[in-house]
């Protein structure tokens, strides 16, 4: 009896601790929403501590004037999905070769590609900037996308998935007259879709949030993604530190991903786990 009571008490304490921590972690999001909906020139101490004197969208209207969000949104979409489409093609082809073909120098080539796992593109911004300049691609959407088009991580993930497919299936397809592409398309890809989805979600999230590289290689707002647009809000409002506008800007940038996450929570989390567990 007593042991059960203690167990219950401890479980309740655990839940309480969890709730406390969750509130703590949610405060930045909740606070941003509240500040974004608060009248701009109303200090936090006036009116209701949560809502001010009234709820308003004027911060969103004002932040819309700071920069061209439509262009940034379009740039982000082109950047994120342009990279994703190219990545899917490149990693699938390479992974197939590494998983099921024998050729001279295979280990060496695979090793050379895996070096990318160790060296994140972010660290190489200076030499990569020089490359982009040399190629004459400064301030183009290509400058944004090129460094991410080949992915060691994706190649590795898809190679693992392809290796799970029984060889007999490939043999059967060959006998039925499938060429290499037919085999890849009909035999290897269908069971590997979950890996591809996992890779896709992680890729989309990371590209969506990219900041330093787009900041460096673009200049005109039509090529600058949402994150760089947000940095403009930060700089223009610095004088008065218009936090209502800043948080409104943040919400605009994170809204699409947050919405996706709300609906596909399990897929998102599974993708991140899968991308970690090799």
């Amino acid at each position, binding site marked *: 009896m007593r042991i059960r009571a203690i167990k219950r008490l401890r479980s309740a304490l655990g*839940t309480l601790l969890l709730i406390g921590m969750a509130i703590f972690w949610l405060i930045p999001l909740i606070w941003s929403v509240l500040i974004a909906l608060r009248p701009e020139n109303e200090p936090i101490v006036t009116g209701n501590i949560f809502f001010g004197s009234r709820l308003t969208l004027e911060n969103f209207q004002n932040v819309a004037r700071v920069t061209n969000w439509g262009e940034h949104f379009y740039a982000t979409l082109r950047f994120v999905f342009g990279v994703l489409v190219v990545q899917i093609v490149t990693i699938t082809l390479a992974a197939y070769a590494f998983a099921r073909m024998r050729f001279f120098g295979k280990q060496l080539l695979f090793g050379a590609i895996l070096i990318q796992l160790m060296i994140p593109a972010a660290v190489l911004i200076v030499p990569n900037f020089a490359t982009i300049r040399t190629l004459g691609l400064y301030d183009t959407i290509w400058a944004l996308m090129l460094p991410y088009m080949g992915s060691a991580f994706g190649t590795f993930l898809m190679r693992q998935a392809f290796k799970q497919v029984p060889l007999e299936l490939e043999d059967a397809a060959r006998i039925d007259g499938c060429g290499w592409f037919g085999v890849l398309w009909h035999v290897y890809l269908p069971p590997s879709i979950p890996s591809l989805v996992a890779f896709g979600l992680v890729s989309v999230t990371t590209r969506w949030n990219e900041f330093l590289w787009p900041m460096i290689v673009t200049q005109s707002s039509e090529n600058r993604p949402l*994150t760089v647009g947000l940095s403009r809000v*930060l700089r223009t409002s610095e004088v008065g530190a218009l936090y209502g506008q*800043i948080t409104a800007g943040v919400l605009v940038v994170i809204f699409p991903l947050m919405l996706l996450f*709300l609906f596909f929570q399990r897929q998102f989390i599974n993708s991140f786990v899968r991308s970690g567990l090799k």
Partner: protein
Amino acid sequence: MSNLESFLDYQAARRLSTGAYTRLWQRSLPYLLVLPTFAFVFLFTLLPTANALIQSLYQPGNARIPTRYVGLQNYLDLFNPNTLIGADFARIAGNTLIYIFTTVPISMAIGFGLALLLNRKMRALGLFRFAFFYPVLIPMIGAGSIFAFLFADQIGLLNTILRSFGLPGIKWIGDPNWALIAIIMVSIWKQTGFCMIMYLAGLQGLSNDVYEAADLDGATTWQKTRYITLPLLQGTTLFILTTSIAASFQLVDHLFALGEGQPNERSNLLLYFIFQKYNEPRNLGYVSAITVIILAALLIFTVLNFWLWERQTYYEN
């Protein structure tokens, strides 16, 4: 006869030629498949790495002085606290080490604790997962912007709370003693969710048998966590540790919203320092040397990871 022979010869020749063609195609196919990935990796990972290495050995010239080879002088300058760049570098490299070796263990510890608490039958699991995981999905520049407001001097939430307890407010971003701590707090908030879901996945992979046996022996929860769970999750821990360390080097975007390394470089980090100087030709040698130093650090951590991994699997067998 001769007709038939020539016909057979023709067939053989044809077979040979298609055979040769097919063989050539089959031989080159794997290379063609790998080529796009390899080309991109070569152009934007391998080549720039070599580029940084070479540039780090040169002193960039200007209109009057040509670029010249200086050997390891750039590195010597960086590690000499008496030079202008050396003083900055010592401070910023120190900050980066503090940043990584506080952010990573703290977010791992909290993540592990949360995973333990969440790994029970409970209601509203989705809500809790959202609460801890959403920071992983938002851009670091966005996180920085939100916290800029939480840290604000007069109207910030943190200072409002401090003052309501009668404590003096802290300037956070403007205060040389607190700026780096503020930067670290944002990263912990951001990273913990990742550690949590990785540990949660690890916990869900453990079998119940060991715990039932331990229960029969009357083990306490603490003992079970310390002597069963933690050792069994060693692989997970090692994995999170190395990925988080590598990620921390890159996790610098929030500095843009939080004081840009000021006051006096007290909260600056290596990658952000590179970002600040990328367009200053006269510093190209130094910036390249710092790039190489970060790459070397990443290499050391990776090798260490492999070594630990080998040792661990060795013991497991």
